[in-house]
């Protein structure tokens, strides 16, 4: 999916994309949670959604901003969200999700929802934001059942972690807040799974936060707007991709255990590619959301002054139809 959508952006068919290359083992954390656990992501956690049953179609619809996008086409691609899957909608600003996750966890605790926690993903770069300090400190002092999960992938766009912090990564900071912390090999799917499972157990039984720092490497560019060859050595990336590839590691393990073989690998790849391409083709053809979605949901109801603006646009569209082609949209009605 990453490959096809990245290419699609290059071809001008979607406007933007972010890949997960190098960080695939993070799916271990998804497997360790329960479905009712609330997820706050940053933007590189589609694995969590896919694990929970968000389909490739759902991803495609969002990336193509079509009428089936739960977000109604308002945000850039990869800004997924799904109430059904307990995955809070992604926003671009970094770190803002951290105190939100603490608050959501606190609410779950008050609910007597003893069996649900929140998990909050962020990168080592976002951990430099003030919201990180606020979120962790509040989670600790207010005893919130939240798992803070840092994907330390070595880069914040062009900024290497050596310029992001001078301490020993993000994990030591947890200690400073009085938070139980573990640092794991982020490219080992089982390690990630085990750490998350243990963290969840602590969060749920003791109603307190846990910090996991998962060490990994961002093999891909930051996004389709980035060319990482401008600031790092191609050879370094190739070596990391070859010698510490999370997918390869898991596959080799499964092969050794006799759970997997090359034939299954080939079949899965073929099937997946077919699924993704089919989904891609379908999503591209679907209409965009109806134009009324421009004005809806700013508030729970459209306030009078905004309704006036909506009417103004409606008048303009009637007056200058050649300037307002609406064929792409599910409906040209604004109401």
């Amino acid at each position, binding site marked *: 999916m990453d490959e096809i959508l990245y290419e699609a952006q290059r071809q001008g068919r979607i406007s933007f994309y972010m890949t997960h290359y190098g960080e695939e083992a993070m799916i271990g954390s998804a497997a360790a949670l329960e479905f009712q656990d609330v997820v706050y992501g940053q933007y590189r956690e589609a694995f969590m959604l896919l694990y929970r049953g968000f389909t490739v179609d759902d991803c495609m619809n969002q990336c193509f901003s079509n009428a089936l996008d739960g977000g109604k086409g308002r945000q850039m691609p990869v800004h997924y969200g799904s109430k059904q899957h307990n995955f809070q909608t992604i926003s671009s*600003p970094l770190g803002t999700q951290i105190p939100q996750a603490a608050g959501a966890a606190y609410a779950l605790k008050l609910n007597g929802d003893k069996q649900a926690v929140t998990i909050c993903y962020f990168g080592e770069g976002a951990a430099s934001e003030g919201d990180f300090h606020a979120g962790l400190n509040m989670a600790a002092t207010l005893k919130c059942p939240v798992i803070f999960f840092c994907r330390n992938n070595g880069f914040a766009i062009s900024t290497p972690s050596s310029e992001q912090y001078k301490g020993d990564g993000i994990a030591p900071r947890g200690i400073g807040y009085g938070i139980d912390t573990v640092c794991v090999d982020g490219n080992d799917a089982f390690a990630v799974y085990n750490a998350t499972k243990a963290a969840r157990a602590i969060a749920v039984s003791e109603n307190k936060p846990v910090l996991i720092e998962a060490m990994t490497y961002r093999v891909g560019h930051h996004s389709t707007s980035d060319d990482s060859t401008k600031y790092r050595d191609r050879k370094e990336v190739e070596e990391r991709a070859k010698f510490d590839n999370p997918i390869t590691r898991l596959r080799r393990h499964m092969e050794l255990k006799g759970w997997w073989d090359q034939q299954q690998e080939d079949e899965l790849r073929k099937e997946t590619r077919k699924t993704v391409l089919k989904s891609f083709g379908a999503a591209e053809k679907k209409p*965009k959301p109806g134009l009324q*979605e421009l004005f809806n949901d700013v508030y729970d109801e459209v306030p009078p002054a905004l309704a006036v603006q909506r009417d103004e646009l409606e008048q303009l569209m009637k007056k200058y139809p050649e300037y307002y082609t609406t064929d792409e949209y599910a409906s040209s009605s604004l109401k």
Partner: protein
Amino acid sequence: MSIISKVARRSISIRVSQQKRGYAAGTAQPQDGIQQGVAYSHLLKRGPEDALRNPELAHISAVNGETTKMNLFQAVNDAMSIALATDDNAVVFGEDVSFGGVFRATTGLAEKFGKDRVFNTPLTEQGIAGFAIGMAAVGHTAIAEIQFADYIFPAFDQLVNEAAKYRYRSGNQFNVGGLTVRAPCSAVGHGGHYHSQSPEAFFAHCPGLKIVSPRSPIQAKGLLLASIRDRNPVIFFEPKNLYRAAVEEVPVADYELPLGKAEVLKKGSDVTIVGYGAQMYTLENAIQLAEKKMPGLSCELIDLRTIVPWDVDTVVESVNKTGRLVIAHEAPKSSGMGAEIASTIMERCFLRLEAPIQRVCGWDTPFPLIFEKFYMPSMIRCFDAIKTSVNY
């Protein structure tokens, strides 16, 4: 073969269907005979003689008339280079500036001036702003970059509560005149909520800050140098859509353009049209359309350039001549800069006004990705406002 090159080279054998929507840049078809967009704009000075004919640049053409072709990010880069070269206490910092920045505005500066003076910071806008204030407070020149104007809000407290009040609260014992904050702003076609905002109005409401926004490379270089050297904290909003699209022959000399002074781009007698930043090109096209559809109509176009403090006298003088005013900006209509300009002009020109002041702005919604074309104060909306004003 690396994963990256593998991805780049393997072409997906998807049947390339009739593409109704493409995000790759393409030439737009003329509508109503108007070729829209920056590439066709007459506002840009594409020849050296054009550039130097500007009365504001008269002083440099005598000394050094050399110009070179630059786009907006190159002009910004040039301004910072000159600032760093002429002021030993000047530094440039922000996220990712070292390798050149996500918009290439800081390309080559670290190599030229050293890692002590051009450097990456950790990912923290509140930190960047506070740090910049501290440097300026002890007399240095801090040129800070916020990666996108949409991310300036963590810095709001530092800028509004600290930078803006630094001189006043200290009885003029201290000031942060050396502070300049640069940020790419405004729509880019696919930026959605968080890569398209124009947040000038939030800061315009705060006494103590200056806000500047250039429409072109020549303007960007001169205004940025003026902003850096101005003895007040300045927020410099660079319309990101213009970084590559706007290209001019820019004087290579060290020059400044005046802050607080609007520029009349086109003289006219029937209606005054005011904007800033990327909106100037939309307004240019709207005027072309209006003067075509209403022969004999003569529109006056004004670029504020400095949003705070804006050049009230120039706009008043113009409206006293024309009796009509249209203001346009991408930022949402309610409580935007248009509201402030409209109120002031209403006060100053009440009896002269022949029509209600028109504001063409973004709607009062977050900036919507797929509906961007319906959200923006487009050429046709601006044309419609001109028509309404003139026919009132």
